[in-house]
């Protein structure tokens, strides 16, 4: 059986820092810079508490208290003409401060404006369902439960939507390993044949198309192209490759890596 190493702290030690380009933040503008948004914000602030607000990419972002989510959204729908809920989900900040960030993205067709309502919740804190305001929230909230494990109050059918009902864990949490945990990696075997047949089927073969770092000189880590001949080993010892069985094959010479030459003259 495959060894399972817990990956609870992957978010704390980001292993990808040097692999991906981290884009700088888009500047945040003051809400006063847009009259319509300013009046929207004033309408929300007159009844509810707002902890933070700014305009980013022509969209108003407002942080509210999660207890007010139904009230704020109803006000925006009925009095400010934000008639559509285009998206709703959560962001996992558990490793940073133990919280989820919930966002509701609204669109006003008549005013041609978009607004985003955000709120923080604790890990196990349930959220009031907004599907009474928009039917589209029904599936989005189910997906939020499915992917993050955020519980919902007053939802008509709070069940998983993408993953199977007997799935373990919530895959979009940062602590969930990309290739699945123990339960995920044996899911189909356990379900079809039963746990006792794990040995017969064997562990999953991952990365069938793995390219050895030394297969070509220019194949480097993701996100980088290096000049030819640059050292990309990262301190890793070169492994001897063997393309043939130990006994050799009848009438065929065995490939001997020691006798090979790398031709560096590219004009040859």
């Amino acid at each position: 059986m495959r060894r399972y190493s817990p990956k609870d702290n992957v978010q704390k030690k980001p292993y990808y820092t040097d692999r991906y380009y981290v884009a700088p933040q888009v500047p945040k503008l003051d809400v006063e810079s847009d009259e319509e948004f300013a009046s929207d914000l004033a309408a929300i602030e007159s009844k509810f508490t707002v902890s933070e607000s700014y305009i980013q990419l022509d969209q108003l972002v407002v942080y509210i208290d999660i207890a007010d989510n139904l009230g704020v959204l109803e006000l925006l729908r009925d009095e400010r003409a934000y008639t559509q809920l285009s998206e709703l989900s959560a962001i996992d900040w558990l490793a940073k401060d133990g919280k989820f960030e919930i966002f509701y993205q609204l669109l006003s067709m008549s005013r041609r404006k978009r607004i985003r309502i955000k709120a923080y919740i604790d890990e196990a804190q349930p959220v009031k369902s907004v599907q009474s305001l928009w039917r589209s929230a029904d599936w989005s909230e189910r997906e939020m439960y499915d992917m993050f494990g955020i519980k919902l109050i007053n939802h008509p059918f709070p069940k998983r939507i993408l993953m199977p009902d007997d799935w373990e864990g919530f895959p979009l949490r940062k602590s969930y390993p990309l290739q699945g945990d123990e339960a995920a990696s044996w899911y189909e075997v356990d379900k079809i044949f039963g746990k006792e047949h794990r040995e017969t089927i064997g562990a999953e073969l991952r990365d069938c198309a793995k390219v050895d770092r030394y297969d070509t000189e220019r194949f480097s880590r993701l996100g980088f192209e290096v000049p030819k001949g640059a050292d990309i080993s990262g301190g890793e010892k070169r492994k001897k490759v063997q393309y043939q069985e130990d006994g050799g094959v009848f009438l065929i010479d065995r490939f001997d890596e020691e006798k090979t030459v790398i031709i560096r003259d590219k004009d040859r």
Partner: protein
Amino acid sequence: MAQHQVDYTKDGGLPIALTSVDKLINWGRSNSLWPLTYGLACCGIELMASGASRYDFDRFGTIFRASPRQAEVLIVAGTLTKKHAEFIRRLYDQMTEPKWVISMGSCANTGGMFNTYATVQGVDRVIPVDLYLPGCAPRPETLQYAVMMLQQKIRRESANKAQKKKRLL
């Protein structure tokens, strides 16, 4: 009057007649391979193209059927998710013997580029496979070639012997 009378019911039975029956059955089987309409992802598009007029699978006697009870070839065309794994197994079990499986494309062969928690890493973890087609997605010609290879395989098999059980367990 015949000088060399041979009693075909004795002395080794009916060797010629038996192979002929074998060949006849295999000829029939290999030229009427009915696959299940079963496209799972992008490879399914190539599968549909193979069935349509340009590549015209009907001329091989390969006619897509909508029910596993009428099908004898399962062409797994696409990404098999873990959620769907039990259903592919159920469809396979519902097909009548003799049955064959073609795994089409990298996803069905090995999980392909979907090295994630939700994809089965190769359908052969769930059902036994006869032929693997490489490619992402394989062209309809490749699928045609696979069907021809499967026909060859069937013609080489013995028809009157009970089919060897192809089970993973």
